[in-house]
């Protein structure tokens, strides 16, 4: 089957408008007879559920947490981009579109990204109207900050908790509809399969996580908004419960899975401290505005620091290797995420890591504190301030900017980052890949939609900072409500979908059998044992740098772990009660398949682009020697995989990417 993106014809800037003018609509009376299931209630799912309910559809929303407001969108710190041009610095939807395509290393679909940029401004208006307390300046106007990879200031923020505030906004819109009875909310429920009737998605099988009951829910369309699959690495900045089960289940039922190898490794996370580590904590990208990243130049100093014989503050400037400034003089510490992450790995692989695990580099604020201190002394008219005074003045400025992050670091690491440099290391953060969707956000299964991080569509091979929130809300508030209406307009005569059909019987049977297998298997190893094993393989062989040999090994090793898992997994407790181990078992089982497809996709893509770096594909000479090398001739396509049983047997479908409005260039940060 050829992949049809269903992108409307016409000039790029008119596509979305003319699309909206020409789609079929459902009249309000008919909307009352149509049910929609939304799985996942983060920014994308929450905003979609609220909007669909406002429009008049009957929405059933599902979340595995005890409330939609706990979805992991809540953890996004920095901000949300929108082409408002409030700063008058030359921003426009076109520029946002351009930055996003370029930042994504030219691996995203132009028309989708342009639409995203077009609706971005609406998001801000909407959120303000909902009572989202965005930061404001002294004139009472919305404030902006800058983020990596762009030349304008277009990021709106609410302290360091923008994701939280936007999610609470979307949740408040949901609450209004829950109160009206238009959204039926299923908290502590997990979707375990999608049900197809005559080729169309018509419902789901879900497990009530409190009672263990298996439930059937039917609808005229199903929307998957369950986020990314970063937890395939075991350690990531995702929440503990973040999982790929819904996305993977629909993949197995016919939805193609696109570009799984595009995963963002965020450069500034707090390093792992031991094998017991359960998750990694992100420190906002904004820290790189003022922090300088370094490791010692000499191995002796590295060893001395690791053994506690020397403190990093004792090293002179000459003894430090500010490797980002050395390698990328033009962008220095502000190179994009993928570049910064790989550079840290390169130093640590060479043995220069500064903590016991050998996986940490310094992020040092000493220069910034000095600089701000001197500036403040001057402003306050203090001549020849003492070193302590300068430090004190500078510290106050740094505290005002990053105080909450410094406090968080201090609580976790128990070191004062004002006094001694922070230690950081890259960690899995976001997955650009995901379920393949067309321009309508529909998967390759009719009536089955996928939005937010769970789909693959807008970020190409690398996502820019503050764009995830934008995409989630754009999909949910402003895109899906139109596109799904076009589909549902054909369903007004269908009537209620019954759940006592053989399709539901079969799906439920499959789900129940799998659960029964887990609780009865009585193996010898815990679920986490396998998850950690998978994570280690993924991190070492399908992590920040990948090569053919490693990827082939990874595929074989993941398969072996998976086989062992199905023999030896041990799930205590029963199926008919709250059972967190059982929940984890199902999720890890899916990660064990997804991981292999991930490696397969990485193996197929023999180029370096964005977050995907193949050691075979680097610049061999010139200024860019050693940097990532994209291959537009052979790989300017979306790799959409069709499920065929074993992950290794997945069949590749290519959606060729066309760039009519943008010229493909190499990203250079030298």
């Amino acid at each position, binding site marked *: 089957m050829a992949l049809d993106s269903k992108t409307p014809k016409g000039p790029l800037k008119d596509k979305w408008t003319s699309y909206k003018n020409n789609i079929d609509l459902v009249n309000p009376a008919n909307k009352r007879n149509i049910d929609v299931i939304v799985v996942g209630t983060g920014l994308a799912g929450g905003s979609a559920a609220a909007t669909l309910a406002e429009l008049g559809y009957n929405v059933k929303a599902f979340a595995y947490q005890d*409330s939609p407001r706990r979805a992991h969108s809540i953890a996004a710190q920095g901000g949300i981009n929108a082409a408002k041009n409030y700063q008058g610095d030359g921003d426009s939807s076109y520029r946002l579109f351009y930055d996003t395509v370029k930042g994504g290393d030219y691996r995203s679909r132009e028309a989708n990204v342009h639409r995203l940029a077009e609706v971005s401004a609406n998001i801000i208006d909407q959120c303000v109207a*909902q009572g989202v307390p965005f930061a*404001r300046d002294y004139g009472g106007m919305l404030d902006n900050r800058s983020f990596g990879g762009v030349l304008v200031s277009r990021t709106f923020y609410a302290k360091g908790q923008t994701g939280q505030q936007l999610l609470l906004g979307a949740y408040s819109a949901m609450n209004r509809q829950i109160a009206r009875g238009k959204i039926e909310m299923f908290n502590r429920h997990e979707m375990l399969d999608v049900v197809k009737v005559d080729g169309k998605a018509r419902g789901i099988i879900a497990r009530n996580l*409190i009672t263990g009951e298996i439930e059937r829910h039917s609808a005229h369309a199903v929307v998957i908004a369950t986020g990314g699959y970063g937890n395939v690495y075991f350690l990531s900045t995702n929440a503990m419960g973040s999982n790929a089960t819904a996305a993977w289940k629909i993949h197995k039922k016919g939805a193609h899975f696109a570009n799984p190898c595009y995963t963002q490794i965020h450069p500034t996370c707090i390093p792992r401290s031991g094998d017991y580590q359960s998750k990694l904590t992100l420190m906002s990208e904004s820290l790189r505005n003022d922090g300088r990243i370094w490791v010692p130049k000499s191995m002796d100093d590295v060893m001395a620091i690791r053994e506690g014989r020397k403190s990093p503050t004792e090293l002179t400037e000459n003894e430090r290797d500010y490797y980002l400034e050395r390698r990328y003089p033009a962008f220095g510490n502000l190179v994009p995420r993928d570049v910064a992450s790989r550079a840290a790995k390169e130093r640590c692989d060479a043995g220069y890591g500064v903590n016991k695990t050998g996986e940490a580099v310094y992020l040092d604020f000493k220069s910034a504190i000095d600089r701000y201190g001197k500036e403040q002394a001057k402003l306050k008219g203090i001549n020849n301030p003492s070193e302590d005074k300068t430090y004190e003045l500078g510290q106050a400025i740094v505290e005002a900017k990053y105080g909450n992050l410094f406090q968080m670091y201090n609580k976790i690491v128990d070191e004062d980052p004002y006094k001694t440099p922070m230690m950081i290391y890259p960690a899995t953060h976001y997955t650009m890949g995901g379920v393949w969707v067309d321009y309508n956000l529909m998967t390759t299964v009719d009536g089955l939609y996928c939005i937010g991080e769970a789909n693959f569509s807008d970020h190409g091979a690398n996502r820019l900072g503050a764009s995830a929130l934008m995409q989630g809300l754009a999909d949910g508030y402003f895109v899906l409500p139109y596109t799904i209406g076009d589909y549902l307009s054909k369903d007004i005569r269908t009537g209620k979908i019954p759940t006592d059909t053989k399709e539901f019987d079969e799906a439920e049977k499959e789900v129940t059998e799998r659960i029964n297998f887990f609780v009865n298997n009585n193996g010898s190893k815990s679920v986490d044992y396998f998850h950690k094993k998978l994570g280690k393989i993924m991190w070492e062989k399908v992590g920040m740098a990948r090569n053919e040999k490693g990827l082939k090994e990874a595929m074989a090793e993941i398969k072996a772990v998976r086989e062992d898992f199905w023999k030896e997994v041990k799930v205590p407790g029963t199926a008919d009660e709250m059972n967190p181990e059982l929940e984890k078992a199902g999720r890890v089982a899916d990660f064990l398949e997804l991981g292999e497809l991930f490696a397969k996709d990485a193996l197929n893509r023999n180029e370096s682009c964005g977050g995907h770096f193949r050691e075979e594909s680097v610049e061999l000479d010139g200024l860019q020697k050693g940097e990532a090398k994209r291959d537009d001739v052979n790989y300017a396509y979306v790799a959409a995989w069709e499920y065929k049983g074993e992950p290794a047997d997945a069949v590749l479908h290519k959606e060729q990417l066309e760039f009519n409005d943008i010229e493909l260039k190499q990203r250079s940060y030298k």
Partner: protein
Amino acid sequence: MNLTLKIWRQKDANDKGQMVDYNVTDISEHMSFLEMMDVLNEQLINTGDEPVAFDHDCREGICGMCSMYINGEAHGPDRNVTTCQLHMRMFKDGDTITIEPFRATAFPVIKDLVVDRTSFERIQQAGGFISVNTSGNTQDGNAIPIPKKDADDAMDAATCIGCGACVASCKNSSAMLFVGAKVSQYALLPQGRVEATERVQNMVAQMDLEGFGNCTNTGACEIECPKGISLENIARMNTEFMKASLKG
């Protein structure tokens, strides 16, 4: 370090439940409290026992899912942290740690340390929103200037993660800090003023219906709140409520 844990075990909502003692060994001081619980659970699974169920998700202090009452305090002895941010360096080798679920009639136990906090959701559904459609066709975000102080105060109130530590810590199991924060966020913004009267009345009525206790201003909630939500928000809710009642 080696520790003795006294943990509340309760099979389900109908079970009576009891405290059970466990021992864990070789706990690193760099572990988070929940990682220590992971170690215990791994140990329990390996010995064929049922692991302790507890709520947790983001493990970075923002989702508000984790909810343990540790050594007599919500989220344990540290300040301005959730349980997932609490680190074992707060404890000493040989310590006995008591771990209980958040307790309130309005937060019934589901299993072990997991409680049902959907009473909070129902309070929000009673009025914790602004009745504006999500069409995007609202006025421009800058059409109504909002004084920086109001925006900042609204943000401080909105920082609430809805974990329920305020209820758990309050001797009266009062939810006023939570509801006060929600009411305040909207009361401080011009967009929220339109429905301010009905909102505060509806939310307070729902709060009372859920069986939370009344506030006696002990201030325990503010101290134990991982996000440092201020008592000012309760005072503001009181004023808003009385104003609304006078309006009728």
